[in-house]
């Protein structure tokens, strides 16, 4: 779990160019971290690659916070 959280946060920091301290689990990608709609698509793509999973569009739409991403990946990751 903590491993997934760390990897997710690292991707968010790298992709959005935000400070690690800002990337709290309740932080919303768009409202709190300054992502635009394309950024959210790209984050999902990056998560898919990092964790070798497929995130379907309807699930991706529900991933709005860092915590949403961590919990989806934790319950769907193979590795």
């Amino acid at each position, binding site marked *: 779990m903590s491993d997934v959280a760390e990897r997710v946060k690292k991707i968010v920091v790298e992709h959005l160019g935000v400070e690690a301290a800002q990337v709290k689990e309740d932080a919303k990608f768009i409202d709190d971290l300054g992502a*635009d709609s*394309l950024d959210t*698509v*790209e984050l999902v*793509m990056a998560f898919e690659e990092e964790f070798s999973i497929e995130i379907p569009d309807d699930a991706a739409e529900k991933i709005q916070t860092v915590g949403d991403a961590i919990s989806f990946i934790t319950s769907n990751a193979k590795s």
Partner: protein
Amino acid sequence: MFDLSGKAALVTGASGGIGGAIARMLHKQGAIVTLSGTRADALEQLKGTMGERAHVVAAKMDDAADIERLAKEAEAAMGGKLDILVNNAGITRDNISMRMKDEEWEKVLQVNLTGTFRLIRATMRGMMKRRFGRVINITSIVGVTGNPGQANYAAAKAGLIGMSKSLAQELASRNITVNCIAPGFIATPMTDVLTDEQKKGILGRVPADRLGTPEEIAAGVVYLASDEAAYVTGQTLHINGGMAMI
């Protein structure tokens, strides 16, 4: 200028007069090229004249699954990338509107507009990841001026222009440009069948007083595909000998 060495390009409708010229000119500028279309034998023949850096993936643009497969196979053939997408595939089913059947309308929209959208959507992901893309949609003068007997074709071609402007705005921040080229009357096997009288009628409306060549369209594609055209997006380049000035 306009060096495309190392760039990977997919051209649909490459077995046609304009598509073939586009593929040849992109290839001549150094690009790796995948030729697509419905006639595999014609595509293989074109590939044979090009030598290395050319691939063939036949596909039907009215088949959603086939379009997905085309995107995947073209990327795989070109070493896992696709930088330049030229949507040139198109069909006509001309008829005056009073007599136009639903299937004539739908088929033209499906291939010319829906198929193009699907292929762009299928290739966009890789372009976004690589932070580079050039999408060039071949529309038509008819999409801007209209043409009697071509309500379906004109609607699809006008649709391409509106779609391209929307995609251009969505993707500009990722260094992906989306533009259209609108040919006027171009000398191809499609226009060869016109009678001298028909040609004379057409030329009466063309200040340049001649048909355009496929190479004159291809040159526009090369420009829009180049690094030099990075700041051009959402535009329609009209290549028509002055037939319409918009």
